[in-house]
């Protein structure tokens, strides 16, 4: 058996970079799952579709401001605007979903909110299909900001920032990594240092107890949904910038993988979500590179099932105590 690929350091570095970028995306999605699960013990199946809506909002801003081929404003504020719009819209969407699909079920049997979440996911997916059609929409990030887009002259997003072993690390990848890192730091600080963060921790520890201490748990849960969905919105725009294509069904698989990341890292744990995201991203990139694309998804699912069987609480999670 020959392993020519295994010694190809260029491919290795390329896969590493792909894996890390993909992983930070999954990590952001995983955070939303993880936060919601931590506070409500609810698997928010609709989270992947919130991410999809984020990608579409980013596309909508891009189109409103002249389209990817001839944007009306400079590229830097354009991208910032896309991120802001997608994050705010998704945050609001998350709050609405929580208000109408989950809050009425706070005291229902455990199975009811799960089915409701499934329904929301399906509703969002098909609403996007109805509104935007089945075709792929492209951010055209390859030519975004280019001087001659009609000649396919690459735009600034593809500029190499670093070169490692002949592999270019493009500006768009740096943007994704930097945005993810800053969002992560902001979230960690928010949860650790602020008043609402403290309330969130208290609510996730014991909702009834927190309510008795005068914490408005409904508001805390709503803000958890807001923040989780906000991160998903950012991830959606990142996906659009990285892969240049958004479509109505993209949320399902990304949601599953973000979810895998959350579980692998330990659901409910914020650093765990990020670690899980990186692991899933790397596993997917390397499986796709060395085993072939068709095995990428199966590898990710295999990892999930393995982790669930061997260490159900995840890598950084604490063991769930079944309360009597």
């Amino acid at each position, binding site marked *: 058996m020959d392993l020519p690929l295994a010694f190809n350091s260029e491919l290795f570095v390329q896969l590493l970079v792909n894996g890390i970028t993909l992983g930070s995306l999954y990590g952001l999605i995983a955070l939303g799952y993880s936060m919601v699960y931590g506070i409500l013990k609810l698997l928010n199946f609709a989270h992947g579709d919130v991410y999809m809506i984020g990608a579409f909002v980013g596309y909508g801003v891009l189109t409103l401001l002249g389209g990817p081929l001839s944007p009306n404003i400079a590229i830097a504020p354009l991208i910032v605007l896309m991120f802001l719009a997608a994050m705010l819209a998704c945050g609001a969407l998350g709050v609405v979903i929580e208000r*109408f699909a989950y809050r009425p079920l706070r005291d229902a049997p455990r199975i*009811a*909110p799960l089915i*409701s979440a499934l329904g929301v996911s*399906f*509703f969002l*997916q098909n609403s996007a299909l109805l*509104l935007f059609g089945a075709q792929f929409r492209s951010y055209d990030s390859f030519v975004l900001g280019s001087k001659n887009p009609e000649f396919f002259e690459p735009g600034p997003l593809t500029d190499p920032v670093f070169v490692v072993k002949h592999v270019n690390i493009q500006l768009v990848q740096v943007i994704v990594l930097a945005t993810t890192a800053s969002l992560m730091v902001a979230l960690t600080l928010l949860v650790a240092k602020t008043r609402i963060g403290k309330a969130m921790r208290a609510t996730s520890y014991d909702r009834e107890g927190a309510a008795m201490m005068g914490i408005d748990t409904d508001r805390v849960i709503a803000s958890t949904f807001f923040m989780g969905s906000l991160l998903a919105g950012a991830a959606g725009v990142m996906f659009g910038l990285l892969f240049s294509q958004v479509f109505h069904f993209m949320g399902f698989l990304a949601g599953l993988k973000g979810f895998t990341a959350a579980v692998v890292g330990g659901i409910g744990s914020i650093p765990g979500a990020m670690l899980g995201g990186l692991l899933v991203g790397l596993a997917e990139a390397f499986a796709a590179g060395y085993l072939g694309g068709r095995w990428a998804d*199966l590898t990710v699912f295999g990892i999930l099932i393995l982790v669930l069987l061997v260490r*159900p609480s995840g890598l950084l999670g604490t063991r769930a105590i079944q309360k009597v």
Partner: protein
Amino acid sequence: MEAGEDRPRVGVDEWVASHDDRLAERTGFAGLARKIDDRVPAWARLTLFAAVAATLPLWMGRGDLFAYGIFTLIYILLGLGLNVIVGNAGLLDLGYVALFGFGAYFYALLSSEHYGIHWPSAISIPVVVVSTALLGLVLGIPSRRLLGDYLAIVTLFFGQAFVVFVNAANPTVAGHGLTGGPNGIADIDPNDIFGYDLSSRTQQYYFILVVVLLVLIGLHFLSESRTGRAWRALREDPLAAEAMSMPVNRLKLMAFAFGAGIAGLAGCIFAAVLTAVTSGNFALPILITIYAVVILGGIGSLTGVVIGAIVINVSFQFLAPENPQQNARILFYAVIVLLLVLAVRPWWRLGIVLGGVAVLGVAAHAIAAAISPSWTSGAVVEGGRLAGVTSDWVIIPAGHERFANAAYIALVVLVLTLTRVHGWWRTALVIPTVYLSAIVWETSFVEQPAVARWILFGALLVFLMTVRPQGLLGTPRVEIV
């Protein structure tokens, strides 16, 4: 309650004890349905269903029999299997559709040209059912270690992995791809009874009907049995069940295996009737549909599953893309009127709403036409007599593409607002909501009925869960406060 009993008794929770009494006092449509369901004995319901179902081939065309008859029966079968897992044992199995797919693919491998194996149904069906049940057992093993939610995850991923495996991985076994990849497996043998092929639709229909009736009878006795009662106890409170020394894990696995076996049976029939299987038949939308079947009728109720399957499949077929659009249109307006009749009381308030909708439509149409003729000159999608009425009443603009999308979003917002207001405000808000839903129907849904049905199914699941989680005929949980 009699006067003498009106004092606290040791060991009896008043709230729980009066549960049945409170149920008997239920009013409204659902209460009525429940009362009828309680009064009519099970054998009478079964006979009624069998008698009506048996006459179907006499007055239905071959295509209709396939779409309405056979598919409804397959949905009943699928719903019954899921009902054992979700309804009886209370386990959220999101990989159920993969078990159905496994059954269908396995049957296809055993009885088709794919590998040149042609086992008779008398052997292949039992083999498939038993192996699907075993697979369900294996899949259920995590539920021993993993609590509630984790089970949902594992099964969801199993379902997804199944689709990926069948579609993309398609490992090569004995010369060619095991599952045929995206093309699936074609030329599957029909079911046969000891060598006699069931080739016509009518024969297949009766065969499936007999299978469904047998499964219904079996499940009825099962749910009345010791095991059935233990499952219900498990669903209501696993901890209490364990404290009563019930073997919780074994019961869970049994439910899984049982439901899986029924799914495998449904898979055999599905593959034989369709004569081809592809992975698309076993993806998420079908799972959602089966859940809708079980939940609409009422989790845990056999009659509920049958009713749910009929309602869901008939509306499903009405909204199928190949169906003439007047059917979908008639169904849509009929459902709206029905919902209004059921939800708006008393009758004079209903009259105000209906009148208001009609007036609002005429007024809005006139105003839109006065502003610019292009607002009302959009082409009405063909379809029967109702199309003529709607074209003079609903605003269908020509050349305003964003209008349809804006109307859809406005409708979603309005419906959500409607759930937050009460009394006269709600009555007042119902009027524009109904009119707007007519606009959305005529401008976007009617063009894409397939998408519309998934949107409505998704909304239905959320709606049922928030308003009536036990469905039409299900038993509401006894909450011990």
